[in-house]
């Protein structure tokens, strides 16, 4: 197993995230940093000892604006993740536990949500809500729960076969308490892992939306909307574009890295990266028997290979292969968010 501290990238990711969260929470303690103090006489000034990152088009201190922008970006990221986890876990839990019609319905829903390009979908839904921070969080949450739902569903399918869950069902514990009391703790580590990359995706989505002018609105600003404003002054004040961009990259990179590391902890038998057999399931059309899945099934039946090693005895072959697919596709999909696709 990988030692956390010896992995420099992981150590960097964790300490960076700790730092950026602390700064965002504690930024109000620094009296000198006022993101809204207008000083028109000193507008668009390059970095100087007084203004570490210069001033913007209204003479506001850019360093302060970036720090407060980080507050908004991280807040949107975390809350959108919570929203997405809430929907995803509920849907995944219900369809994994009950199966049958409920499962069919929810999984078709997932397919449909996955099939339309996320940017188009989010923008259209953004039209339906009033503009504001809450609606951005909701919109991002509503369109990023599908991966979590798939992962949780396949985990639940596996856990449902365990004896303690079957026994709980047998002695007549109501389904709701079986789900929350018996199954949820077993899939909890998976949820945590998936949620870190969901935060990364949410931050990317928010910045893209804000950049297109469809996200965070003035006077509030996030890293994405700061970049949008800096576009106008790119020629004279390129430093305005630099800082928010670098912070977005570092934050998203760190969350993704953290997700990778947590995955290793959640499933000690898997060394990170090794199980990444690509199975594109991201935009699967509404039918379960797409070519890739069929192929996945076919492959899992082959004589012992690497896949077999991590399968637990109780898990039927099909579920295991399915689970791997969804995990990978989900990771790919959430990493892709914010990119142009």
């Amino acid at each position: 197993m990988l030692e956390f501290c010896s992995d420099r990238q992981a150590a960097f990711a964790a300490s960076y995230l700790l730092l950026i969260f602390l700064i965002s929470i504690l930024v109000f303690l620094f009296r000198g940093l006022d993101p809204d103090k207008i000083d028109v006489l000193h507008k668009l000034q390059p970095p100087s000892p007084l203004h570490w990152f210069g001033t913007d088009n209204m003479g506001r201190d850019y360093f302060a604006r970036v720090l407060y922008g980080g507050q908004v970006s991280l807040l949107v990221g975390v809350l959108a993740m919570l929203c997405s986890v809430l929907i995803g876990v509920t849907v995944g839990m219900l369809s994994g536990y009950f199966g049958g019609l409920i499962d069919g319905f929810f999984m078709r829903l997932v397919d449909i949500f996955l099939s339309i390009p996320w940017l188009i979908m989010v923008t259209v839904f953004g039209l339906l809500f009033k503009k504001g921070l809450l609606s951005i969080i909701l919109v991002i949450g509503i369109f990023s729960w599908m991966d979590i739902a798939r992962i949780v569903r396949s985990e639940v399918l596996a856990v449902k076969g365990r004896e303690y869950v079957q026994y709980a069902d047998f002695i007549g514990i109501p389904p709701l308490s079986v789900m929350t009391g018996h199954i949820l703790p077993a899939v909890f580590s998976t949820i945590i892992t998936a949620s870190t990359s969901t935060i990364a995706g949410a931050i990317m989505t928010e910045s893209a939306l804000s950049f297109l002018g469809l996200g965070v609105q003035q006077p509030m600003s996030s890293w994405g909307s700061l970049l949008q404003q800096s576009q106008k002054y790119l020629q004279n004040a390129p430093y305005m574009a630099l800082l928010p961009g670098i912070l977005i990259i570092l934050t998203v990179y760190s969350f993704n890295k953290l997700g990778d590391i947590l995955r290793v902890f959640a499933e000690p038998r898997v060394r990170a990266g090794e199980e990444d057999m690509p199975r594109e399931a991201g935009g699967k059309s509404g039918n379960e028997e797409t070519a890739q899945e069929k192929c996945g099934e076919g492959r899992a039946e082959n004589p012992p290979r690497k896949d077999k090693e991590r399968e637990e005895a109780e898990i039927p072959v099909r579920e295991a292969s399915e689970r791997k697919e969804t995990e990978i596709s989900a990771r790919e999909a959430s990493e892709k968010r914010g990119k142009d696709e």
Partner: protein
Amino acid sequence: MAKYIAKRILKAVPLLLLITVICFVLMKLAPYDAVDALTRPDMSQAEIDRIRESYGLNDPVAVQYLRWLNNLLHGNFGYSLLSHTSIKYDLLIRIPNTILLMLPSYLTAYLLSIPLGLLAGSRRGKWPDKLIDGFCSIGIATPTFWFAMLLIYAFGYRMKLLPILGMHTVGMEKSLPDLLRHFLLPYLVLIFSFLPDLTRFVRSSAIGQWKEDYVLVQKAFGAGRSEILFRHVARNVLIPLITKLGMALPLLVTGAVITETVFSWPGIGSYFVKAVQAMDYPIVMSVLVLSGSLVILGNLLSDILYSIVDPRIRST
């Protein structure tokens, strides 16, 4: 073979219909009145009612849906609420522009990702792998528009080498060198946005293949690394990669929303963003339907491609 394809096509049809229903419902849910975009403040209520009637906005929702679907099937996407131009002609002008940008970019990224991914996958943990994988991690975390802004600053403002907006210089619409100069920056940005993801895909696929028995056998027979990599591993890696090709179909139309907006490239992406900002709902709806259908067609295509290159699928 034909039977498998026919089955897949039949399954895609209801999903397509469902997508159109969802698009329609979404637009009906929007909290604004479509007639607002047609009227001026000085119009009387009677005039407004007449416009509402003539656009069929008073009919039952089901009738409106069927009429809209029927128009769609005849290639009639309706008219823009603001400029009153036919969306069909707008799309016909803009789709080739987007394809012109997307096709070369995607293919370049696709072709670059194969050697990069194979190299990284076969040297897992060594420096080429660390370099390539590090590049991918950072590339995935980089917002496309930020990279675009860096390029604009460097090549457009600093070195003044390349134009940064649009597709043509005014008055030089027929000039190919001029088009290429405009093309270069968005092309680079798009390659950068597709490459990390594709490379990761090839890399992890190659890692999986590298552990297969046939690689061990080849090693035992004394085959060289490059021989194993390109003659044996590459073929197996290419199979899943082909599905990526089918799934990239919708990208041809809606893949470059951000890049097109940054560079004011007159394609579907910038058209869509403008329509969203102006709440021009027939345009938004058309693009939504178009991209949804292309996704389903793309999935269909990738399944069919897969079944051609890998006959094992058809038998199951």
